[in-house]
């Protein structure tokens, strides 16, 4: 025999669980979109990579320009 909802309490719990689930899902979406917006707002991403804790000579402006000229 299938288990049935026995009490109105279960409805309240379901209501609350669905609410919390939706809130958490919304939070994930907000953080994701916020991250995308913030990263896009940085402009040229190489500006960030160039100062990524370790020197990246290959990303310096002169090197980048030379690379671009070389590929043309």
């Amino acid at each position, binding site marked *: 025999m299938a288990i049935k909802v026995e009490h109105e309490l279960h409805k309240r*719990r379901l209501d609350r669980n669905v609410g919390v689930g939706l809130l958490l899902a919304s939070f994930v979406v907000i953080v994701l979109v*916020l991250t995308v917006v913030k990263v896009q707002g940085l402009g040229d991403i190489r500006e960030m990579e160039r100062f990524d804790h370790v020197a990246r000579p290959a990303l310096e402006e002169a090197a980048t320009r030379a690379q671009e000229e070389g590929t043309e």
Partner: protein
Amino acid sequence: MTDVTQQTGTYEARMGDYFALMKPRVMQLVVFTALVGLLVAPVPVHPFIGFVGILCIAVGAGASGALNMWWDADIDAVMTRTRSRPIPSGRVQPGEALGIGLALSGFSVILLGLATNLLAAGLLAFTIFFYAVIYSMWLKRSTPQNIVIGGAAGAFPPMVGWAVATGGIAPESILMFALIFMWTPPHFWALALFVKSDYGNADVPMLTETHGRGVTRNHILGYTIALVPVALGIAFTSIGGPVYLAVALLLNGWFLKGAVDIWRRDDTDSEADSHATEKRVFKISLYYLFGHFGALLFEAVLRTNGLGGW
């Protein structure tokens, strides 16, 4: 014995009960004024960052509402107007309200700081502290000036909205703060004049109880007169303009007339028509605030289209 029968003694809250803790009607005003503060600022904001900013301000306001309900549960249970709130009605446990209030306060301030800037986050944190601690825990039960000083908590949202956009404080944002700050006393005292018995039963020292209703009528008129230059002054700043000035003149005339009507009456007149004038002025005060901020928003829309302003 099943799990269900064991727990039926304690009501388990629905999601809506938790939402009611956040004072959604107050939140409407907070969201609207914060949104106007954000949109009239001279610095454009990415729509999503603006959305997150307003969301954080709304959640922060809701958190302070939950903390207020946790602290005031004893007096809420006494007053007719607040008896059906989630805690006194038993739908939410006090500890839950405290937990929700603290968690959402931290969440909203941190997210606002990460999404926008530290000044906006700091202002929001101070607003929550001011409402929950300075107003609810200290002023509300100790002085008839409770709503005068406590009104600052409700006045901060447009300043926070402005800070979200600009990262700073300016005369315009201070004037928007001042508008709500000066508007709060006549608004609440008009309410106190027609729900008088409630505050008295709860031992909340509203001006009507401590100094009498005649003094309250004088104070309503005094604060409304003091409000007029603040409201009109905004018209001559960078966020004002002729449309705002016209709206402000109209609304201030209307509100001032209402305040004079209240001042001219005594309790006998008031009881005779079931506080009709007091109720009318309370309603006017709502139109007053929404009207001013609506006009500021309209001026901002005009400015973006090359119109508006002086």
